[in-house]
């Protein structure tokens, strides 16, 4: 809990973060940027967990644990995703999402 900062402000921040992530995921064509946007969304949710835990149920710790899980899984996911993207780039020399349509037809 941070003194002088109300819950609503932090929620406003996470909401902004989340929709910036959504916006980025929808509009960006570069796979790396899309991955970064996904990370933004993920972190917004993680902050929500921590904040709700700290402000509303200070005697419990589940929210913190979940956040640690999310962070570690996000790391693993990022590693896998980047590996895939690198392989995609090696095969078709592009990281543009719209040009990766090998399996469309």
């Amino acid at each position: 809990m941070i003194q002088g900062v109300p819950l609503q402000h932090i929620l406003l921040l996470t909401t902004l973060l989340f929709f910036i992530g959504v916006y980025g995921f929808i509009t960006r064509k570069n796979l790396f940027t899309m991955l970064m946007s996904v990370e933004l969304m993920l972190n917004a949710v993680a902050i929500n967990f921590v904040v709700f835990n700290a402000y509303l149920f200070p005697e419990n710790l589940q929210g913190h644990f979940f956040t640690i899980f999310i962070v570690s899984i996000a790391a693993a996911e990022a590693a896998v995703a980047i590996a895939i993207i690198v392989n995609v780039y090696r095969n078709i020399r592009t990281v543009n999402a719209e040009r990766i349509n090998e399996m469309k037809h």
Partner: protein
Amino acid sequence: MENWSYIIWILIIPFLSFLFAALPGTKLKSSVSGLVGIASILSVAILSYITAYSYFFVSGKIDGVFQKIIAFNYVWVRFSEVLQIDIGGLLDPISVMMLVVISTISLMVHIYSWSYMHGETGFARYYAFLSLFTFSMLGLVLATNLFQMYIFWELVGVSSFLLIGFYYEKPSAIAASKKAFIVTRFADFGFLLGILLLAYYTNTFDFITLTDTNGTLITNPVAATFMGASVLTWAMGLIFIGGAGKSAMFPLHIWLPDAMEGPTPVSALIHAATMVVAGVYLVARMFPVYLMVAPDALEIVAYTGGFTALFAAVIACTQHDIKRILAFSTMSQIGYMMLALGVSGYGGEKGLGYMASMFHLFTHAMFKALLFLGAGSVIHAVHSNLIGDMGNLKKYMPITHITFLIACLAIAGIPPFAGFFSKDEILVAAFEHNKLLFSIAFFVAGLTAFYMFRLYFRVFWGKKQAYHHAPHESPFIMILPLILLAVASCLTGFIPFGKFVSSDGRELLVHTHWNIALPAIGFALTGIFTAMAFYKKETNASTDITNALGAVYKWAYKKFYLDEVYLFVTKNIIFNGISKSIAWFDKNIIDASMDGMALVTNYFSDKIKGAQSGSVQQYTWWYMAGSIGIVIFVLYFLMIK
């Protein structure tokens, strides 16, 4: 008790020969298939003769009655506890007699065809079909039950179809084979209905059970009726429709004259001696049932036979194609056989008609096969079917001439040739039972003599033809069957047939009834002399009479316009009236509604397929919009209350 299990080889040998000739196609030398066909039918004939000898003279008779023996039997399909279909071999006097007839004629035709079909493309195919036909026909006569008979009945129909259409490059042959198949198939539909009806009420297909005079069907017939007649009369009537179709009885006869498109030896085998008498055989097989439970159906048999005999004989007097004359004569003679069955009773002297019918079947097979083979010999020599192109052939083809004359005398009923004896029995049977049918039969006897001798004199006497190249006698291989059959036509009449075949299996003493035979001979001689006066020398008398008769002659010449009637019914009423409206309904209602469904689906899929772009970002957009929509919906409409 003798072991009859070798009978099964009578069926297996021709079937193997069929496979042998048919499967290699053109890879085998055609003469090999021909020789194998002849050898196999020869062994079948020998087996049949052995069977006939041991059945008739050694062990068929117990206490003076010929037994019905099941030579072999396999259960094929078991429908229920009581109803099953067997495949087996039944030996009784008529089936053994038919074995002899079929294998003899088939052997003659096999030998004859060796020379007649020589050099023909499809020689092996021809022998394959002949073997198939022989196999099916033998299976038909050996059948132990109605269903087995039906199976072989259809097989016979198929092989007849194949052989009529043997010259498949010729449109008329194709049309004829289709006509034969469709007309007989149509009749067989009646046969099948009859079988099912009978089996439904009696729970059996088995001939021995059905025709047992002490069995439940005959002593305690089903009482159910349908439209004023008992169901058994209906069943037997329907079965007779099948027989009438195969035996070319009026009004289902229209296929037989066209069937002459096939090779001539085929006509001799199938459309004169064996297959077309299958209907007679069927009625004879079921005879006790006809007589004792369905006498109305038997009346129909008698009158159909009588009418066909007369009808076909009149047409035969007017035709110009040698094979068609013989075809109509065949119809007429089969009409005789049906008539004889129709007027017969059961047991002892009353069963004379039955015996006469079988006797006539036997003798007719011999002399009619001879006539056809003789006609084949003539056609072979002059390369034409029309009697207008023939004449004075006695000079060129002496042996064909003599054998043909013998066959003509036999069919005309002149003693001592075979036809006289059997025809006499038929006339006696008809005389005792029904005077109207007797007078028809008597009149037809004269007509028969007339048209046969019209044919004989036109072909072998008559005017001198200017042949392009002089006709010559056929080779020995074709002459040999003619001579053998001519001998048979002379001698078979003296067989005391009643000793072997009778309605109840007991001996029936037969003697010639001169009070009926003499007028019949006289009438036949009148026919012969009339024909002689008209046709022996080239005169105008026949043309004058033809012109005098005018429309009547034309009516008969056009086969009483029955083909046209059929054509009218099928084309104008069934095709244009019924089928076209059904086709319209099918096309515009049923198909169109299905098409409509497809069209609507297609339209919508076309409209919404843009949504499936394959772009993940677009999907995300829709996903986000959807989830936000749901959140708003939940917040404002469900939670705030």
